[in-house]
């Protein structure tokens, strides 16, 4: 990706951060911390890595995105709005009765949501199943990208799926770990230490890459290489910061599942416009 393209994605990231703050503030509840830590990952996927067409959300050759950490729904909705899957004005209906923007993504409500998630630890198996179905159909073009939280990796089902992806040599599966070091009850290393995440995936037979999860350039490079891989599943362990971009939310468990009040939202948006200049 050229420098101007990277600058464009970085610009999109700021727009998505604004959307996340505005929609969570309007909802009065939701998960800003883990949405903000995933912004560059999701933005890079939708803006430059994934083959997708908002006009044809069911296009067979599209790449698929599974938001296994479903509580970060706002980052997905922000990306979908950015790319025209839904009108931006609809974002503020998040979590309201009758909205297509459910608290956790619902594939039966919103086109562009590939699969319903919300119960942690199931997305990788869903991705595997989708990848196996593509293989059975002889549809070799798509890659299934699956974004997981680091706390989420504590679910045993993640490792059952990791084992299966390697066993079936699913080179059309790319997992991304949002390694922000925090879950709800505290730091992952204090709540339930994950140990060395890259080594764990390597031991399960995966190709492992690591990168700065807030660098569009590094993400772009890693995601493209992972997409092109032909030797079984690839995981990108992306080092991130929870709440990234909003000074008073950064690296704090408190902002995992709490909406900013009107004053906090205003301060957050002001910070984002400063950064945008």
């Amino acid at each position, binding site marked *: 990706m050229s420098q101007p393209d990277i600058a464009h994605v970085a610009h999109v990231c700021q727009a998505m951060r604004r959307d996340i703050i505005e929609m969570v503030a309007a909802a009065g509840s939701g998960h800003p911390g883990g949405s903000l830590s995933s912004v560059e990952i999701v933005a890079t996927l939708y803006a430059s890595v994934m083959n997708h067409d908002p006009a044809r959300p069911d296009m067979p050759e599209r790449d698929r995105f599974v938001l296994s950490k479903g509580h970060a729904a706002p980052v997905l909705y922000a990306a979908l709005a950015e790319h025209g899957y839904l009108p931006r004005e609809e974002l503020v209906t998040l*979590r309201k*009765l009758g909205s297509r923007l459910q608290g956790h993504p*619902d594939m039966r409500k919103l086109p562009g949501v590939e699969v319903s998630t919300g119960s942690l*630890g199931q997305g990788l198996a869903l991705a595997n199943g989708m990848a196996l179905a593509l293989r059975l159909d002889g549809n070799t073009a798509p890659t299934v990208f699956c974004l997981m939280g680091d706390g989420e990796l504590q679910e045993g089902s993640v490792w059952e799926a990791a084992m299966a992806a390697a066993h079936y040599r699913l080179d059309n599966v790319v997992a991304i770990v949002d390694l922000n070091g925090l*879950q709800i009850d*505290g730091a992952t290393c204090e709540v339930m230490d994950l140990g060395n995440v890259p080594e764990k995936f390597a031991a399960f037979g995966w190709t492992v890459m690591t990168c700065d999860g807030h660098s569009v350039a590094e993400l772009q490079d890693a995601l493209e290489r992972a997409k092109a891989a032909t030797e079984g599943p690839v995981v990108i362990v992306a080092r991130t910061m929870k709440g990234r971009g909003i000074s008073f939310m950064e690296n704090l468990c408190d902002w995992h599942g709490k909406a900013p009040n009107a004053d906090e939202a205003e301060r957050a948006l002001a910070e984002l416009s400063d950064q945008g200049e």
Partner: protein
Amino acid sequence: MADRATREALGATLIELAALRDDIVVLDADLAKATTTVKFKAAYPDRFFDMGIAEQDMMATAAGLAVGGKTPFASTFAVFATGRAYDQIRNSICYANLGVKIAATHAGITVGPDGGSHQMVEDIALMRALPNMRVLVPSDYLSAVAAIRIAAQTPGPFYVRLGRAAVPALYTESAEFELGRANVLRTGADVTIVACGGMVWRALAAAGMLAQDGIEADVIDMLTVKPLDADTLLASSGKTGAVVTCEEHSVIGGLGSAVATELGLNGPCPMEMVGVQDVFGTSGDPEPLMTHFGLTASEIAAAARRAIGRRTA
């Protein structure tokens, strides 16, 4: 007394119990703030185990602690406690009749904006079906305290269902609670309203509406869904000849099903069920959602009128 959520009773009561008993230990799965077990963690850090986001591991570990002579309380949201870890509960806890006390919070629709993935309306059904398991669904803060104490005092597995949203106080400090005994909160000869959890105060409100039209209702707080208090139920239904059940749960397998089974076998009479009609929840604020799913006092009153109408028809 101010409205309080039943989940708030959890952390507070566990601390009280732990002061008296060394065997009380607590496990959570990365939701200690929301379940309120974080209070226990602060007071008894050595007897608290955060298992991370690993509910299945938490339940089987709790079973192991019970084998080792401890009285573990395992806590997380109802959807993950019962759904994710069902086989651990079945095969490691209930099959061996181990004294694991599952204290699940955020049950039902009033979870609100998190939506259908988190609004657990099948947990009573899952837990009721298990041999050895007892199911308690307290209706206010004090009855929640009592339910947690009963679970701690009584051998064997328990499921205590707690809510996220604040509910009005229905009991005073002098109220008595007993496993297998329902509490009759209001008496009347015309219709029996049986409710549990956050539907009990709504049932009382419905009884107030009905009284304005001269219809007098028995309102039974069936805190002890399993074992069900069949004596209190049948005594009331025998008197009124019309029954309404109310629950923040699916009409399949919950309180309504338990009451229907009891009435069908031992005292058939017209019955109506107020509950979630075999659908998943959805995002929204708690009270509008309760209206959306027909879980309101006026729906209960309407169901009571239908039940009475069927009796006299």
